[in-house]
């Protein structure tokens, strides 16, 4: 490979990923005056964010005026079982309303309250109706609004500079395979354009990872094909660290039948709007699964739960609206106990609970999805649902305020970053996370650029040659295994052995199998040439999928407790000692290295937002504030 084989494109900021966080980051970087490139594996406007259904959590208080950032912060910490990076949770709760209002000023059309404000809906783990939404297609509204804001900025640039792409340009169907550095600092991103396989180097001192999650590591996942852990892996390979990769969210309700659509998401809004879970005996089983830490906040009888929908101030919430990890485990347990539905799920019933016209109005996509793909009319009969992989809480370790990783010039926002959601993410907190930290990443990258002055890091030739050779290897091998076969086996291993319920012996077996799969992946052969070749693309993605699978498995083996999206059959209890521990993955040579890192104690004013009794359920005795300590509200 010669240097002329690589197209070089200089930019100030390069954003990898064009979903919610990537576009929000790019908009902010452009507004700060940076020449910005956005790189997307798909076409513009197709990113996985379109699949978000329920809504975007922001304590605007439009439906219940008692809501505010402190309540949202508390709910987020509880949902994450106090393992969250509390500073991220604080920034998120405080800034989410501004980020939602801003979308409206850019043209978004959310559903309305009777007085014309943005309507908000109930969701699992949120104390008040908090999710700004558009029916059950909120993610599409968000991505389209951000896409159209990018276009609006390009139109401004067309008027000012005569070129719509002078300041912000979208590189659709382009994949990054390596980040390149200069003396430890980010110098650029190397990759290929999917339509012709040509190499491209984005020369930029600041890179924002916004690549989303790792769903394609698992067999049944609601994630789109793009979710191959690219950003997680690129960060590791560039010397950054990953935080708490054992926490993987298995969302409780996905379609289970037909097999073709197994893993297709059924929005939590079905439960937020009144839907209930039943087993084969017709029992509303969630009442049997309310854990002690949440006992005080959830209804004990069906009557009280049903009253809550109309009178939330005097009744407690239905247990169907517990955080997702609790509901997923309950669904799993009912099926295991032999009380499942015919196709191995449980029943989700809204038909008997709400009038058909209300279901059609509030859940149009769900109606459409079941009608067209499963011949089920959800206004007349219950849905069959079960858990599938949905989200990863673990991700790149970042500074909460700037989103910068440990590598200078490398930033991360959205699902690819770690810490914000602790051990379990609440529904609705993802879209808001994308906006809040996308915005901060754009600002962080712009500030980093200012701090650089004139000098810019440069990519070294040797590193580029290596990246090119790595990318071409699967095409150049005379023979080798089919990449699709290896991918299917990785997914099977992870789903069987490091899935929703985990055990030491099974995780160890998984690690052995992953080791063998890694050797096989290094020898796969992609047939065909460089032009739009999905087999070649998958062969390259396998490196990332396997690297991240190993991180998840290693961290899952290490953490000997059950918390949020990490359930150990052999360690079923939540442990206050383990709450203080973050597990950090880094790369040592080409091996994943794992270490423990203490969690920073929560700032006092934030800690004072909780009753001591509640903290005692999570904290060790030494961590607890002294008894009788005055609450912050009283002392101020």
């Amino acid at each position, binding site marked *: 490979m010669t240097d002329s084989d690589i197209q070089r494109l200089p930019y100030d900021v390069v954003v990898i990923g064009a979903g919610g966080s990537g576009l929000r980051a790019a908009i902010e970087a452009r507004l700060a005056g940076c020449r910005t490139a956005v790189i997307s594996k*798909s*076409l*513009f406007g*197709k990113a*996985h964010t379109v*699949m978000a259904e329920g809504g975007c959590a922001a304590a605007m208080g439009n439906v219940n005026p008692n809501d505010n950032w402190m309540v949202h912060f508390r709910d987020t910490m509880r949902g994450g079982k106090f393992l969250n990076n509390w500073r991220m949770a604080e920034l998120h709760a405080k800034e989410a*309303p*501004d980020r939602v*209002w*801003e979308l*409206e*000023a*850019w*043209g978004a*059309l959310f*559903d*309305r309250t009777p*007085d*014309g404000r943005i309507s908000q809906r109930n969701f699992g783990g949120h104390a008040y109706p908090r999710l700004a939404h*558009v029916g059950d*297609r909120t993610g*599409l*509204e968000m991505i*389209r609004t951000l896409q*159209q804001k990018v*276009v*609006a900025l390009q*139109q401004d640039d*067309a*008027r000012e500079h005569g070129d*719509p792409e002078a300041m912000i340009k979208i590189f659709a169907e382009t994949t990054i395979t390596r980040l390149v550095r200069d003396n430890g600092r980010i110098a650029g991103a190397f990759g290929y354009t999917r*339509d012709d396989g040509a190499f491209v180097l984005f020369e930029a001192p600041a890179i924002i990872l916004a690549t989303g999650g790792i769903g394609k590591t698992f067999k049944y996942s609601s994630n*789109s*094909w793009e979710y191959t852990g690219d950003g997680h892996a690129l960060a590791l390979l560039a010397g950054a660290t990953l935080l708490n990769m054992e926490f993987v969210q298995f969302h409780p309700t996905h379609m289970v*039948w*037909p*097999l*073709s*659509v197994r893993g*297709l*998401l059924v929005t939590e809004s079905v439960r937020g709007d009144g839907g209930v879970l039943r087993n084969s005996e017709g029992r509303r089983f969630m009442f049997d699964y309310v854990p002690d830490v949440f006992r005080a906040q959830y209804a004990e009888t069906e009557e009280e739960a049903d009253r809550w929908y109309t009178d939330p101030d005097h009744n407690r919430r239905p247990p169907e609206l517990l955080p997702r990890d609790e509901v997923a485990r309950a669904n799993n347990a009912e099926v295991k106990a032999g009380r499942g539905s015919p196709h191995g799920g449980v029943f989700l019933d809204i038909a008997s609970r709400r009038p058909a016209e209300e279901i059609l109005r509030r859940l149009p*996509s769900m109606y*459409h*999805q079941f009608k*067209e*793909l*499963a011949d089920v009319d959800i206004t007349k009969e219950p849905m069959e649902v079960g858990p599938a992989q949905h989200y990863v809480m673990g991700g790149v370790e970042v500074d909460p305020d700037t989103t910068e990783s440990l590598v200078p010039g490398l930033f991360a926002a959205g699902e690819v970053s770690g810490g914000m959601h602790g051990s379990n993410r609440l529904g609705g907190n993802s879209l808001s996370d994308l906006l809040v930290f996308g915005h901060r990443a754009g600002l962080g990258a712009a500030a980093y650029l200012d701090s650089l002055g004139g000098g810019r890091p440069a990519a070294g030739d040797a590193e580029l040659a290596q990246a090119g050779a790595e990318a071409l290897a699967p095409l150049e091998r005379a023979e080798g295994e*089919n*990449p*699709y*076969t290896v991918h299917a086996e990785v997914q099977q291993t992870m789903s069987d052995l490091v899935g929703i319920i985990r055990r030491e012996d099974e995780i160890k077996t998984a690690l052995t199998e992953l080791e063998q799969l890694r050797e096989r992946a290094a020898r796969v052969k*992609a*047939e*065909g040439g460089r*032009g*739009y*070749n*999905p*087999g*070649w693309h998958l062969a390259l993605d396998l490196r990332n999928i396997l690297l991240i699978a190993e991180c998840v498995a290693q961290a899952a083996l290490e953490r000997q407790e059950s918390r949020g999206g990490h359930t150990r059959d052999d360690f079923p209890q939540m442990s206050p000692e383990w709450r203080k521990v973050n597990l950090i993955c880094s790369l040592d040579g080409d091996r994943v290295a794992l270490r423990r890192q203490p969690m920073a104690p929560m700032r006092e004013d934030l800690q004072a937002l909780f009753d001591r009794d509640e903290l005692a359920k999570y904290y060790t005795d030494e961590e607890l504030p002294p008894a009788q300590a005055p609450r912050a509200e009283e002392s101020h």
Partner: protein
Amino acid sequence: MASTTVTLRVWRGDAGQGQLADYQVEANEGEVVLDILHRLQATQAGDLAVRWNCKAGKCGSCSMEINGQPRLACMTRMSIFEPGEPITLTPVRTFPVIRDLVTDVSFNYAKAMEIPSFTPDPAVKPGEFRMQQTDVERSQEFRKCIECFLCQDVCHVIRDHPENERPFAGPRFLMRIAELEMHPADTADRREIAQDDFGLGYCNITKCCTEVCPEHIKITDNALIPMKERVVGRKYDPLVWLGDKIGRRPRHDTPAVPGRRSS
């Protein structure tokens, strides 16, 4: 579970040339065309180019022509086909082929760039917008669009008529204009440019776009016809015409944004 073998007749080739190739592929109960294509990739044709993303009918990536009909592969169930009949899969015809079933849809992004964006009253600050549900619902219907571009593919104004691609934006983007015109908080006026720059007049309401829309948006009835009525009111009303002529009525139409088309 019932497993059968189906014959897929898939267009293989690139911008230069190509032909239909036959494959025998396993199919199972409840599957959609995209499942069969994935199985074909995994077992027989690893380099078969197919654009897809969510496999849930939400992203609009896997548009193609299935037995000549513009459809999403992820929402087309195998059960709709006659058993034993081959299923023919070809790229969407209106746009140039990149490879196999993948086409270059950049025409659509260029058109999107030319439509004047949402223009709120600058005096209304974020958080201060007040809109009624009944007022947002018209535009909300159009915002269900997943940009699969099947309406663009089927529209006879540009299908097999590349010479019309310059004066005509296609149903998706005429609907985008309608969406902004009906947005309760928008202040711009795109009625003249809808006709003059984006070719609304080319549409003779055959409703082909509405028929192929996987989101069941009533593109013709709810977007294009009302938009035509608004244009008539703006351009051809004799009083408005007179007002323009004698300078009593200031021109307030927003100009189209200079795009690649004009450069």
